[in-house]
């Protein structure tokens, strides 16, 4: 097996806020294989974004990351800012949720794209502009020759996200991290962007991490899905398996909560009672126990660990997993 593109071991991210220590990520380990698409789902505050911000070496000033992050053999947490800047935007790139705020408002689309190639690939501006136009064509932006001369505000949200995707692919990345890439978009546009990401994966062969709170979006793209709860990975399984035979009670309950446009209609929506724990809360035992229908005394004392066999296809951190 080829070495993983991204390898995270025992990563913790702690924020300090008004003297209090808030744990956002707690001892997370994961790998992303070359060309693999890994979906990461979880509620807001579950730490799913922070894991991959740390993987990009983007750690906020009031946070401390511990553990190891290796990307293509480079130790991301230990490397210099200069080295990080060479990797980010070329071999490792990111697509953010809001395509408006992640593009510079006062630069033309073509120049923003070209700048990436000038900085990372040492292209001349004229080469880079031509490459930018070709990339817009590849991400199916209609009329690219006109679009390169436009500013971000002249583009719709869906087009801006296409530009962002194009930008992330310019230097032939090994890994693209997409954080809620379709959450700000309408459902019809969302479907187009999912289709585009799928096509780009086939065309460029990069690994893709897709972070989303929407299990439906992840279901369409991911080979494997990681479920996060309160800063930890609680379940990891192949996409098809997770939806049909979820083993962690949180995953199982979450799947029941998703209202559907087909199938039986409920008078009342199924719910998951209670609230996820706050980042500052100290957690004894399993973080999900207070909301879990299967919780027993043991769950409140002893924290369940993710199955030790890292190579197992289906891993779950639960004392009493749902039996398949």
């Amino acid at each position: 097996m080829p070495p993983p593109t991204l390898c995270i071991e025992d990563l913790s991210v702690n924020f300090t806020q008004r003297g209090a220590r808030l744990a956002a990520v707690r001892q997370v380990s994961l790998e992303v294989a070359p060309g693999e698409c890994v979906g990461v789902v979880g509620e807001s505050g579950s730490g799913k974004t922070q894991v991959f911000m740390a993987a990009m070496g983007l750690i906020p000033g009031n946070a401390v990351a511990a553990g190891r992050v290796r990307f293509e053999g480079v130790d991301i947490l230990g490397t210099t800012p200069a080295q990080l800047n060479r990797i980010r935007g070329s071999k490792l790139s990111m697509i953010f949720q809001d395509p408006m705020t992640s593009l510079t408002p006062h630069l033309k689309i073509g120049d923003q794209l070209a700048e990436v190639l000038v900085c990372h690939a040492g292209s001349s501006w004229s080469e880079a502009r031509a490459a930018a136009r070709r990339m817009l064509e590849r991400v199916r932006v209609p009329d690219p020759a006109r679009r390169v001369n436009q500013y971000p505000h002249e583009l719709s949200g869906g087009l801006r996200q296409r530009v962002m995707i194009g930008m992330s692919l310019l230097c032939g990345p090994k890994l693209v991290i997409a954080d809620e890439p379709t959450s700000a978009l309408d459902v019809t546009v969302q479907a187009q962007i999912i289709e585009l990401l799928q096509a780009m994966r086939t065309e460029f062969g990069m690994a893709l991490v897709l972070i989303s709170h929407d299990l439906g979006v992840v279901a369409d793209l991911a080979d494997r899905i990681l479920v996060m709860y309160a800063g930890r990975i609680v379940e990891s399984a192949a996409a098809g398996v997770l939806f049909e035979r979820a083993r962690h009670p949180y995953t199982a309950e979450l799947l029941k909560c998703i209202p559907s446009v087909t199938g039986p209609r409920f008078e009342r929506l199924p719910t998951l009672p209670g609230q996820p724990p706050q980042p500052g809360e100290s957690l004894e035992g399993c973080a999900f126990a207070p909301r879990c229908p299967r919780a027993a005394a043991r769950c409140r004392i002893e924290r369940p660990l993710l199955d030790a066999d890292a190579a197992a296809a289906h891993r779950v951190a639960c004392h009493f997993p749902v039996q398949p």
Partner: protein
Amino acid sequence: MNAAIAEPLLRVLDLRVEFGGHAAVCGVGFELFAGETVGLVGESGSGKSTLARAILRLLPAARGAVVWRGVDLTSCSAAALRPLRRDLQIVFQDPLASLNPRMTIGDSIAEPLRIYAATLSAPERNRRVAAMLERVGLAAGMIGRYPHEFSGGQCQRVGIARAMILRPQLLICDEPVSSLDVSIQGQIVNLLLDLQRDAGTAMLFISHNLAVVRHLSHRILVMYAGRLVEIAPRDALFAAPIHPYTRALLAAVPRAGKAGGAAPVPNTVAGAPAPHLGCAYRDRCPHAVAVCTTHAPPLEEIAAGHLVACHRARDFTV
């Protein structure tokens, strides 16, 4: 509910709202009956929120009428409008931004009582606020806390408590669960349904999430580029949608666990300026014919209670 004989609570007639001469809402008409829940779906920029605000006269109407129990809200005097407002409430999308950060949540919930039930004594008002807090699933002891101390879902409960404390006859919910996690969404929707049943409130529920709308609406309105393109009873809309836009919308919903659930959608730009002539959807529509470029299709009844604005509607019915 027998809609045939009941008198509608709210009747929206040919409503038009303009921003700088451009129509954000155009020719919208529908009725809402007591105790009924009507879902309003459409993309961002389709005019859903603008319509909601115009109904409550938070925005002026350029044309048309909003008749609330016989009174036209768009043209009545401010003095006549004020007492009606207690029956017309709204819950907004962003739960934190819709609460005053410098008021305790107890004061926010009590404010409608201070305005519309000024004769209540302070202890009685506090008793009602505390009871309402418990009703929406928050502890009465939280009455003195500030919005920033709560999560998004809890703030939305506060927003709902504030809207429902006067037991309004109409509640407009503008994307009330869109910013919440799926595990919290169901709790809030069920709470709205419970409160609605208790108070007999009619509800206009705006959402881009078709699945949520399906689970709670009696009837559904589909909006595109400022116009209603389809109005149908819930089951008819999901079982046999007619307008090509409604069908594209339904096909685009990603489905967890069903690989390839999202159907391809014509790769054209959403939210492009609506053409002046003809059907606004024609450039994205795979079924457009010549007449679609010259004449805007009127909303016509295709089956009982099922209205569609499409020249080819009859070709799509079974």
